[in-house]
């Protein structure tokens, strides 16, 4: 079992590196879907079957397909993709990376934002009646606010998309 974890973790890191180093946007996008697929495999090894299935269904199966669809529609030439837009000083990149890393560590170590550790032991999950039931109970009681706020975020994105698309007509 451990070797599967290491294998998929290594594969996901390797393909994530390929995403940022490839010049051709389509190849990058395909590597990104491979990364997401490996993450789903890791979720399965953690016995989070529902999250794994949704990961593949939503990210690899829908979001990435739309990404690739748009890239194919624009049919970007990889040679022309290298545009010199804006070169910020590299120290800014370093600082923002460190900030993000520190912030994520803070959340991970303290769970200060939600106030409750969101995981259960396998024994709890079996008592609660399966993964789905336990997860949905948590989602609609403890994390209801976060859940609803996320849906609002998606609504904003939809409205934005409609506004952008309407302008051209």
């Amino acid at each position, binding site marked *: 079992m451990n070797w599967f974890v290491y294998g998929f973790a290594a594969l996901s890191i390797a393909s994530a590196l390929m995403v940022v180093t490839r010049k051709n946007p389509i190849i990058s996008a395909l590597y990104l879907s491979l990364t997401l697929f490996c993450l789903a495999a890791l979720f399965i090894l953690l016995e989070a*079957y529902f999250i794994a*299935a949704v990961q593949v269904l939503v990210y690899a199966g829908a979001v990435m*397909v739309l990404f690739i669809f748009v890239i194919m529609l624009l049919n970007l030439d990889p040679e022309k993709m290298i545009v010199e837009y804006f070169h910020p000083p590299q120290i800014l990149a370093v600082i923002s990376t460190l900030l993000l890393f520190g912030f994520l560590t803070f959340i991970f170590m303290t769970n200060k934002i939600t106030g409750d550790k969101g995981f259960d032991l396998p024994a709890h999950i079996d008592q609660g009646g399966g993964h789905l039931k336990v997860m949905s109970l948590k989602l609609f009681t403890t994390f209801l606010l976060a859940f609803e706020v996320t849906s609002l975020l998606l609504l904003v994105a939809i409205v934005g998309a409609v506004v952008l698309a309407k302008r051209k007509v």
Partner: protein
Amino acid sequence: MESIPLSWQLIKIGVILFLFINMAPFLVWWERRACAFIQDRLGPNRVGPLGLLQPVADGIKLIFKEEFFPARANKALYFLAPCLSLFVSLFVFAVIPLAAPIEIDGKILYPQIANLNIGMLYVLAISSLGVYGIMVGGWSSNNKYSLLGGLRASSQMISYELTMGMAVASVVLFFGTFDLQKIVETQSGMAWGVLFQPVSFFLFLVAALAESNRVPFDLPEGETELVAGYHTEYGGMKFGSFFFAEYLNIVTLSAMMVTLFFGGYFGLGWLSKIVDAGPILNAIFQFSAFSIKVLSFLFFFIWVRWTFPRFRYDQVMRLGWKVLLPIAIGNILVTAFLIYWGVI
């Protein structure tokens, strides 16, 4: 209960895979014969009895064709695309229950490759990856028609996946589980899903026709407009793999419809009562019932293909987003309310 040892598991996987893969050449033959009869001809009837060996001859021809790579194609992806298509369509079938679990020497044998408790989600998740093969194939061939076919395929499959997912969601609400074995068990005694979820069945059927990229939804190929769509530049067994994947997808979709809406492996129980069958014979009867249902759906797919003309692209999109999706959402809402009030 203890499950069967690994060696048996491997034999089981081999048998199911063999049966499943051989559905593709059989379907090729059946489709050609059926379309010939629909068009008042005989179809292939020279190679073997009733022309049954025609697909074998076709396969040998495809395998021995010259391996060809179009100029300026992305070779790695061009090669990968048919592999992806075939991989996905073989992978999806793993969770379909072919019969009820059999008990042998105190060990339990599940007549499906993997008995997952998220079986239904697994099918949706893996089949949503099916579009990659077509998209990658269309893009990597470096051909305008292929690219257009790939674009059409991705937009069409994304649109109808939504409808299919929504239809499945209300079915899952009704059965209260994602486990396909349990879904079938609930339907014993003619309490078939189609009686309780007719709207979901209709939506699933249309979405399945669209997902399989066949007439009347064969826009990704569209030979009158796009030469052959995403596989214009493919020849030999690479084309054969796309072809294989398409037929295997139809088999899986039919099996899904039988499992969700038509009682899965139930239906020949009276026969096993008459002959007082043991567990093995009973499983064979169940498998036969399942196969008969799947075969009738396969015939339905063939029938539709040779009856209807192709939709226009905008018609397909309008049907998907403005007709089927609202019906699907309404269906979920109604089902949820009915369950909440305790009507069903």
